[in-house]
Every structure is written in structure tokens, then in C-alpha cells.
């Protein structure tokens, strides 16, 4: 295929996002800003609900386990187990055994999102220097103050790193939600017979852009919540020099 034809493919995919056209069978109108807007809204709603539930469950448990410093094996290996189960298999298992619909897909995404958040919350809280905690106790901090004023602020960047990883995973995986009858941006990807290659490509572009935006946005949040002292400690030479490549802070590893 020539370069021109390739550019043409991507060009018509962009056109597909903004202007509706007849489907491949010629019976209905597909594509266009209205349909893509609707699919994107459902996609984001599904992702947001799932992520919020996962955060509400995993962050308190991870922080608690990290604070008492026990069950390390459990908190860390949950991520390894999570990685070994393919998301398609997990969704298919739920479709076949539990059922379809918004709530069931959200449940799958919650299960998918919990491991990185839990592991990061655990690691972030338990890695706080014991000397720091001791000196806080020596200064008369109560157990609660140690947690909220010392451990939490230091752990916050790591916790947000986990949330960021899970957010990217959830948004990516919501693409296969149409198998369970939830109309996300996966609709043009999965219904090739209706939308054709152009529709597939258009939806892939939108999903990729949303994911990158989500990653960049939460990366920004991660930097904002990093305490000033930690930034200085990590970067004694001054903030400006490393800013360019510091754009992508450390994170746990899991593509989607």
C-alpha cells in the first residue's frame, strides 16, 4: 500500500468521527459527532463508576495493611495474579456465568482495577522510612496523626500512581464492554460489518486519545499531590533540569 493510501485511511477515519455516513449495508446512518459523543459518554461513565468503586475499596485496605505492615505477600502478589488472567477471558467468564449489562461489566472492571491500586497503596504506606515514623512518635504524634500527617502524605504519589495505572486499564478495557451489551466506543470496533474498517479505525483513534489524556491528566494530579519535601529530596539539583523527562513519573507496570 502506498503512503498516500495510508494517509487517506487515517483521514477518512477522522472524517468518520465528525460526519455521519451510510453503514456498509447502506441501511442506517453511522458515525458522526452525535454517535461518537454518546458512545464516549457511556465509555467514560462506565470507566468512572468502576474506578471510583475500586478506589473506595482498595485504597483503605491497602493503606491499612501498609500501616500495620502485615500481609505483604497477599498485597503484592494480588497484582501478579491479576496480570495472569487475560481481561477478555475475565469478561467472557462473567458474560457466560454471571450475566450482561452495565452492572456486570462495571464489576469486571472493578476487579481489574483493584490489584494495582491495592498494591501501590500498600507499598506506598509501608515504605515510609521507619526512622521518620519513630521521630514523629517521639514528638508525641498519636497513631492517627502518624497515619494522616506522616504516612499518607508520603504515600500519596505512589497511591495515585496505582490509580493512574488502573484508570488507563479500565478505559482501555471498557472497549470490549459491547460484548456484554454496554454501548461504549467498542461498538464500531466490534461491529465491523456495520461500521467497516474506517469506523474501527476512528474508534481506535478516539480510545487511544482518551487513554493518553487520562494518563497525562492523572500524571498531573500525581505531581500536584507530591509533597514539596519529597520533590526536593528526589531532585536536589533543582526542579527545572529534570522537568522534561520527569513528565512520566514512576508507576507500576501493566499495559492493557
Amino acid at each position, binding site marked *: *500500500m502506498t503512503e498516500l*493510501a*495510508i494517509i487517506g*485511511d*487515517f483521514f477518512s477515519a477522522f472524517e468518520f468521527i465528525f460526519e455521519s455516513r451510510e453503514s456498509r449495508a447502506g441501511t442506517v446512518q453511522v458515525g458522526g459527532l452525535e454517535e461518537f459523543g454518546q458512545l464516549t459518554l457511556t465509555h467514560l461513565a462506565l470507566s468512572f463508576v468502576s474506578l471510583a468503586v475500586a478506589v473506595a475499596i482498595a485504597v483503605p485496605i491497602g493503606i491499612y495493611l501498609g500501616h500495620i505492615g502485615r500481609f505483604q505477600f497477599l498485597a503484592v502478589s494480588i497484582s*501478579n495474579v491479576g*496480570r*495472569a*488472567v*487475560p*481481561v*477478555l*477471558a*475475565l469478561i*467472557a*467468564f462473567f*458474560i*457466560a*456465568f454471571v450475566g450482561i449489562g452495565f452492572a456486570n461489566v462495571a464489576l469486571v472492571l472493578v476487579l481489574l482495577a483493584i490489584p494495582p491500586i491495592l498494591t501501590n497503596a500498600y507499598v506506598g504506606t509501608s515504605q515510609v522510612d521507619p526512622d521518620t515514623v519513630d521521630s514523629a512518635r517521639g514528638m508525641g504524634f498519636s497513631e492517627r496523626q502518624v497515619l494522616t500527617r506522616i504516612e499518607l502524605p508520603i504515600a500519596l504519589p505512589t497511591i495515585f500512581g496505582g490509580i493512574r495505572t488502573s484508570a*488507563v486499564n479500565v*478505559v*482501555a*478495557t471498557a*472497549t*470490549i464492554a459491547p*460484548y456484554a451489551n454496554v454501548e461504549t466506543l*467498542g461498538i464500531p*470496533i466490534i461491529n465491523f460489518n456495520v461500521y467497516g*474498517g474506517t469506523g*474501527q*479505525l476512528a*474508534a*481506535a*483513534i478516539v*480510545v*487511544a486519545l482518551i*487513554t*493518553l489524556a487520562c*494518563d497525562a491528566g492523572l500524571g498531573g494530579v500525581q505531581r500536584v499531590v507530591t509533597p514539596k519535601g519529597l520533590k526536593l529530596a528526589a531532585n536536589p539539583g533543582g526542579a527545572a533540569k*529534570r522537568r*522534561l*523527562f520527569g*513528565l*512520566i513519573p514512576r508507576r507500576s*507496570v*501493566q*499495559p*492493557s
Partner: protein
Amino acid sequence: MSAKIPLAQVPEGFFTERDPDDLDCVAQGGFCPSWILENFDRYVDPFFQHVYLTGVSLAIGFVIAFALGLLAHRKRWLTGPLTAVTSILFTIPSIALFLLLLPLTGRGNTTAIIALVAYTQLIIFRNVANGLRQVPSDIVDASEGMGLTPMQTLLRVEVPMALPEILAGLRIAASTTVGLATLAFFAGAGGLGAEIESQINFKSNVVVAGGLAVALAAALDLAVLGLQRALMPWRRAVAA
């Protein structure tokens, strides 16, 4: 043994079944051990396709990422840019990447392997670079003092010292690649994902195809662990 099934909807494997309970089970899309036994053949080819996609991608991915890791070890300033580029690749969802590559490389194994290789890069590269950086400088000094050339120092001292970290990266990359390869059917490359997708409501199918994928991930994990023990008899394997 409930309603009669219209002929047009008779599922595959219907006529080979004898037991009426089994007919019911398959017709209802249930979990049917006897159907699985009789139809296990159909999963063999997709399974080996899955092994092929995973194996080739890991091999190519490891060679590239290892080379990049060595490069970043020699030229420290490259670590930042390489991490940034591999991170961005890593963030793009696999389904989207498969589809974005289609106009460039067409449907088939090539597209799937390019995408899968891309996802191994960040994991392996970062572990190689970290592993090499963590080698104590005293040891490097000592080997130079003993008259080893920089190349000998790298191959005989630094790389062996960094092996646990490097192989830990390979383990993570292996299980990740098995999972991502279940979506390779979007690139027209088949694999176990294509089987899952073809009858996503049929419990027997989902359990067998999904189970094989999980088993493959576990087997590869053990294989890398075995490799680690074989390569480093002087040291107990370190958890990933």
C-alpha cells in the same frame, strides 16, 4: 431435556453427542465436561498460535529491549528519553494499537507481533537498565583493576550481577504478553482470544479457552523461573 431445538440453531458438536443430558447442556450454553473432552481438538491450533505469537514477540522484544538497556547503561542521558517513549507506547490500549497498525501492516501475525513487541519494551528495558545500574561500583572497579576490558566487565560481571532483575522483567513481560495476545484477533492473528470471542456465551468454550491462556501464562512464568535457577546456580531465585 426441555424444548425442542430448531435445526437451524443446532450448535456444533450436536450430532456427535449421545447422552440427552449433554444435548441439553450444550444447547443451553452450559459447562459440559463431555463436550469439552470431545471437542478439545479445536483448541489445539489456536493454542499453538497463541504460543507462537507470545514466543516470537518475547524473543524479539527481549533482544531489542536488552540492547536498549545496554545502550542506556553506557549513555546515561538516553535513559530518560527511552523511558518516556516506551511509556507512551505502553499506555496506548492494545486493541487500539492493533487497529491503528492495520492500515500500515495489514491483517495478520506481523501486525500482532509488532504491537506485542512494543508492550514488552518498557518492562524489560527498565529492568535491564535498573539491574545494571544497581551493580555495586566497587565490584566494577575491582574487575577493572584485575585487567578486564569494559566489554569483559559488562559480560562477565555486570550482566550476571543484574540477571535477577533482568529475568524478573522477562517474567512480567511473559505473563503480560500472554494476556495481550488474547486480543490479537483484532489484528486478524487468531489465537485463544478468537476462540473466546467466537462463542462468548458458551460456558464450556469460555472456560477451556480462558483456562488455556491462564495455564500458558503460568507455564511461561515457571519456565523463566527455571531459566533463572539454571543461569544462576550460585544464587536462589528472587521473586518477581
